[in-house]
């Protein structure tokens, strides 16, 4: 059988690794569509045929729950994301971010939770007026990463998981402390219109059992998940 999974951009790479294993073990097929959490939410609103939605925040899944578009009780936190400041040269740190003059890449705060988090950080450091007109916004966190990676922008606020998976030298980034921004509590839901909710739930459970993989990838695992 086939599962259609909508996944927040930051988690796409990790999910594909999980899905590979899942496919190998069960013989089912997982098709992944990635995008900004907000964009995927909009698509679901308008009838996109996904079975499972892995968001980068808890807000959208809650909204879907209120709208009764999910399988009751399926909403869980599967990971907690971490934001990192990536600077291609020099020694990235809170100071170097505070003194950054050039263009800075972030994700779109309106669409991507990682972008919202980045905005929180900039606000806390009082950088918003200084960086006006210099914020290059990717439509999701993957695009943001790619802006920096291609060398077109020299620094950006991206997901730690991306830097880990690309094996970027830890000297080139600074992991932003959790309390600098609203928590990136990433929740998942099984959608009601799913044609195969059992299988979706099965994948979700399978994912929740891969805690080692998630921590290695750069996520924290919430107590809530650990309990289950």
């Amino acid at each position: 059988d086939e599962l259609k999974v909508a996944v927040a951009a930051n988690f796409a790479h990790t999910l594909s690794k999980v899905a590979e294993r899942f496919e190998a073990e069960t013989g089912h097929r997982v098709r992944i569509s990635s995008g900004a959490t907000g964009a995927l939410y909009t698509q679901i609103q308008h009838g996109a045929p996904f079975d499972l939605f892995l968001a980068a925040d808890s807000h959208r899944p809650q909204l879907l729950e209120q709208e009764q578009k999910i399988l009751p009780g399926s909403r869980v936190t599967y990971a907690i994301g971490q934001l990192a400041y990536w600077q291609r040269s020099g020694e990235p740190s809170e100071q170097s971010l505070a003194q950054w003059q050039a263009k800075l890449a972030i994700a779109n705060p309106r669409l991507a939770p990682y972008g919202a988090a980045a905005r929180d950080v900039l606000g806390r450091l009082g950088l918003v007026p200084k960086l006006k007109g210099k914020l290059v916004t990717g439509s999701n966190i993957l695009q943001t990463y790619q802006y920096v990676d291609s060398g077109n922008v020299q620094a950006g606020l991206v997901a730690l998981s991306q830097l880990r998976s690309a094996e970027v030298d830890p000297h080139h980034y600074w992991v932003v402390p959790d309390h600098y921004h609203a928590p990136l509590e990433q929740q998942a839901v099984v959608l009601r219109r799913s044609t195969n909710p059992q299988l979706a739930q099965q994948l979700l459970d399978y994912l929740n059992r891969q805690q080692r993989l998630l921590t290695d990838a750069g996520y924290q695992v919430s107590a809530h998940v650990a309990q289950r």
Partner: protein
Amino acid sequence: MPSADLEALWVTFKLAAITTLSLILVCPPLAWWLAHSRSRLRPMVEAIVALPLVLPPTVLGFYLLLAFSPQYSVGAMFEGLFGHSLAFSFAGLVIGSMIYSLPFVVQPLQSGFVTMGTGELEAAATLGMGRWKRFHYVVFPMTKRSFLLAAMLGFAHTLGEFGVVLMIGGNIPGETQVISIALFEHVEALAYDQAHMLAGGLLALSMALLVFIYGFLQQNERRWGYW
């Protein structure tokens, strides 16, 4: 090439082919009317046809999204009819593409019809040829080049569609993931090797196709001074 890309390629070609075929059947009468009507309504109709040209694809995508969404009446009706929402389905993409590519098919045809002049048509009419015969025996062969151009532009523009698809197609592999989206995803995901392969492959393919078409046109021109 990975199978997902091949699938995207296949979806894209299917979409472009179906769209082009439908448009090339629908557009000639409209283009003809636009080319020859002296009605006061003409500028209005011309403007409507040209609208998808001027509107950002996202505007079109936005309205289509609303229309297709099962939250609203039109979309709900569709869903009742087809059993699934038109948004994020292949059928929805075809409709969106047809609207989006309409001016690219209509305008070359219209321009061809305008510039072929009326001389030969008047001659055909005095020979007793009716509307259809005139079209079949005179208009079509004399504007073959415009038809080819129209089909080409329509096909090409659908191939390159991005904004509308992004909004009403989403990114569902095998159903609505077209190459432009797949490539966007590769680039975002830093899969530059795959991106290079897909983009390079497309580039080579398109270039070859275009050189072939234009070369063919030129040869025919040489042979007759006309075709």
